[in-house]
């Protein structure tokens, strides 16, 4: 974000850095769109005072909080400002939330991904709120000629012990002259009034009334609509094309070649889509054209091979296997998957000699800015990226290939353009969730688990395993190995990367292992935790205690021990620093197994916003079940065999279970929530289906296997 000198001068007073690189307010703040107003009894202010990059306070006492991170549906545009508002000690009703633009000088980590926003924003946001509160206290102390320690705050006001009161709005101009303290005192958790209470999504009104909010809604005077025709398969490159038919479509402004692609520019979207279908092109296939059968063969080969260096090798796995009374060995496989956020990829770009203006839905704005500066050979100061609300991400919008396309295209034609990927582009172009496979072997000696050996392989997976996660540390002889495979099919993070299938493999394996050992499936896990070797605590990311607690609470809430003839399946997993246990219940109705209920118990530290948190938990479970059941994508000669929602099946309302969510009360710092309920879901369901049908599931998707 480039700042003009004027804006720097205007607000230079409040410039010391407090937590999280908090610096000063700048003029672009006022140009942010997407105000969100809650119903406040206070009138809209006539003037505002910038207190920091995060906060401005109006003369009537209303407060604007800038939400730094991209919003993809994980609700950080509500929960991050809640954290700041808590320490600022204002009434949430008086808060207006605005999405901040990319501004690396003033904010840290403006990224949505890895369930990290809240985890990493927690302390900086608390400090940012507390710093402004401290400045307001200093202002009140100046007015009343007293010490700040005599004063208290509540709901946007400062109180003198003698009963005098000043509102934040009255103090803002004086307060803005103070430097924010570096280490302002933070509230005791017991004094929280906003955190832990259910707050509505701040964009609710705009969403339910259809107001422009998403990248795809971007409109600028004079912009052209662009659609791109891409090579029909991964591995093919453009040789020649004929655009004569395409150019006859009314509304077409231009057709241009961009590397391997052909871009159609039109005065609206439909002519661009229509014309792109009328382009005829020939392609060379210098690169190999890959097939799913081949992928599968390679994966199976790799998981039977030892790796050059195991990622973990405790005890002596080979002798544990040699001395075992019994060995259980199973393998698991899952396909590539598209992310399919409901809003397809799109981006606005306007490249001129003076500036590069970019605007749209992206989880990683800073990364894109750097790449584009390099690709266009422009200084970073020339480039701005505006962030919009995103119609879902699931990892897809970490990768800015569409941002780059929009920038290159606008640079080439020197016009403002809004690029749209059609759903077909979105589903076939990637990056995709990598196809992966696992082989797990367990040694059983004297009816106890004496050895565990997992080997994973995936396409473009630097590590197909998670050797710092559970059950590492609980099994004496223990080996983890991982192989990476290369492909010209692009892959990347997909909600709960790696663990979205790794957890399925391990947690269904444990179910089968318990059966073989004639142990209760929950008890097997509790017994394993009992054996945790405390000397390894530093080598793993989890604590056995919270893991044990979620398992027991899920067991009890689902009445697991009293289940009688009910078909229940158990699964638990630790990821993104959160602990989750899930129990699924299956019934057989008209000979068809159905999942009727899922109990989910989560320990994610302090829950900032219980309303939004339940949505994340339910969403993760439904996503996990849906893709485990139906998600499939195969390649034939480099081309994806699904193109749209008629051939790619997503879970619908009739297919979801009732979901019972329970959060373990906690006073620990908040951990991730957008992802961790997904990994265990597939296994809970598969284990319940096994109980109902007697058929084990090893591969995803498994709907055909079970239903028919």
């Amino acid at each position, binding site marked *: 974000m480039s700042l003009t000198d004027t804006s720097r001068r205007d607000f230079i007073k409040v410039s010391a850095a407090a937590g999280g690189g908090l610096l000063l307010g700048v003029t672009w703040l006022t140009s942010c769109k997407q105000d969100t107003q809650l119903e406040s009894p206070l009138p809209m202010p006539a003037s505002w005072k910038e207190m920091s990059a995060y906060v401005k306070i109006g003369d009537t006492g209303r407060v604007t909080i800038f939400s730094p991170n991209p919003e993809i549906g*994980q609700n950080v545009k509500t929960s991050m400002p809640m954290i700041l508002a808590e320490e600022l000690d204002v009434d949430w009703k008086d808060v207006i939330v605005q999405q901040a633009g990319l501004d690396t000088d003033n904010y840290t980590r403006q990224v949505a991904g890895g369930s990290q926003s809240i985890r990493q924003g927690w302390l900086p946001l608390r400090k940012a709120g507390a710093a402004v509160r401290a400045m307001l206290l200093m202002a009140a102390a100046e007015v009343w000629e007293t010490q700040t320690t005599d004063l208290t705050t509540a709901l946007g006001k400062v109180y003198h012990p003698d009963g005098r009161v000043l509102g934040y709005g009255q103090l803002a101009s004086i307060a803005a002259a103070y430097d924010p303290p570096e280490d302002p005192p933070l509230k005791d958790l017991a004094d929280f009034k906003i955190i832990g209470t259910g707050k509505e999504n701040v964009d609710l009104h705009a969403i339910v009334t259809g107001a422009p909010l998403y990248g795809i809604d971007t409109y600028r005077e004079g912009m052209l609509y662009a659609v791109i025709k891409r090579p029909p398969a991964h591995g093919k490159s453009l040789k020649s094309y004929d655009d004569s038919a395409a150019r006859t*479509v009314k509304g077409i402004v231009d057709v241009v070649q961009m590397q391997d692609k052909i871009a159609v520019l039109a005065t609206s*979207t439909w002519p661009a889509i*229509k014309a792109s279908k009328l382009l005829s092109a020939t392609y060379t296939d210098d690169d190999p054209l890959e097939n799913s059968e081949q992928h599968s063969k390679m994966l199976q080969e790799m998981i039977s091979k030892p790796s050059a260096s195991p990622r973990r090798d405790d005890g002596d796995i080979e002798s544990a296997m040699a001395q075992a009374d019994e060995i259980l060995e199973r393998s698991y496989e899952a396909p590539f998957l598209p992310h399919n956020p409901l809003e397809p990829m799109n981006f606005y770009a306007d490249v001129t000699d003076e500036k590069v203006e970019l605007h749209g839905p992206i989880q990683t704005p800073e990364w894109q800015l750097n790449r584009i500066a390099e690709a266009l050979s422009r200084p970073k100061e020339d480039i701005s990226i505006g962030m919009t609300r995103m119609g879902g991400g699931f990892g897809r919008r970490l990768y800015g290939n569409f941002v780059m396309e929009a920038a290159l295209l606008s640079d080439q034609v020197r016009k403002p353009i809004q690029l749209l990927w059609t759903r077909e582009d979105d589903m076939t172009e990637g990056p995709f969730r990598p196809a992966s496979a696992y082989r797990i072997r367990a040694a059983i000696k004297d009816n106890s688990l004496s050895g565990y050996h997992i080997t994973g392989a995936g396409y473009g997976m630097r590590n197909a395993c998670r050797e710092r996660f559970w059950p590492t540390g609980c099994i004496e002889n223990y080996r983890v190995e991982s192989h990476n495979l290369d492909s010209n099919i692009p892959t990347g993070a997909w909600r709960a990367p790696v663990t979205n299938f790794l957890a399925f493999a391990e947690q269904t394996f444990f179910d089968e292992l318990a059966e073989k050992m004639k142990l209760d499936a929950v008890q097997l896990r509790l017994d394993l935790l009992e054996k945790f070797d405390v000397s390894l605590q530093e080598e793993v990311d989890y604590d056995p205690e919270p893991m044990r607690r979620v398992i027991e609470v899920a067991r009890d809430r689902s009445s697991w021990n009293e289940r009688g003839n009910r078909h229940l399946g158990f699964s638990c997993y630790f990821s993104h620093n959160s602990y989750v246990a899930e129990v699924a219940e299956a019934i057989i109705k008209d000979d068809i197994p159905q999942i009727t209920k899922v109990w989910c118990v989560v320990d994610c530290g302090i829950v900032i916003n219980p309303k939004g948190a339940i*949505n994340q938990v339910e*969403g993760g479970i439904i996503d996990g079940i849906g893709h485990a059941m139906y998600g499939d994508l195969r390649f034939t000669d480099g081309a994806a065999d699904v193109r749209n*929602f*008629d051939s790619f099946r997503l879970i619908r309302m009739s297919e979801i279970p009732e979901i019972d969510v329970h959060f373990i009360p906690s006073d620990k710092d908040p951990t991730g929530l957008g992802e961790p309920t997904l990994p265990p879901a597939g296994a809970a369901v598969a284990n319940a289906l096994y109980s109902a049908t007697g058929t084990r599931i090893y591969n995803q998707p498994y709907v055909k296997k079970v239903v028919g």
Partner: protein
Amino acid sequence: MPSYSITVNSQTRSVTADEDTPLLWILRDHLRLVGTKYGCGIAQCGACTIHIDGAPMRSCSVQISQLGDAEITTIEGLSAKGDHVLQQAWKDHDVPQCGYCQSGQIMTAAALIRDFPSASDGEITQTMNAHICRCGSYPKIHQAIKSVLS
């Protein structure tokens, strides 16, 4: 290019577009009513749902030339102040996650509660099954609809 006069949210609007242009793009690009969303373009996801003469329809699969003098209602015209009972229920239940599918969901649900004020749980599900919510907000959608039925 032919010109058409269409009635959208009780206003007559005239647009010039090829006859095969889907209503979706007329609404979004020509009339700049962007609450109607593009999700698939082939009548599978429901993100583009609007009312034509009161009936929920997929605007991606209706062409401008097929409209005649039909009355079109989009999410922007569902209520004067965004205070339709379902819009309120969506707020009370904090339904949206990313929110992208929700205007389409609300348009279908609005027709459902008007025509079947005592729809059963199963009928709600059956009707809403025509929509995809990639974020999985289905439980909340169901609860919100149910809350306004008698």
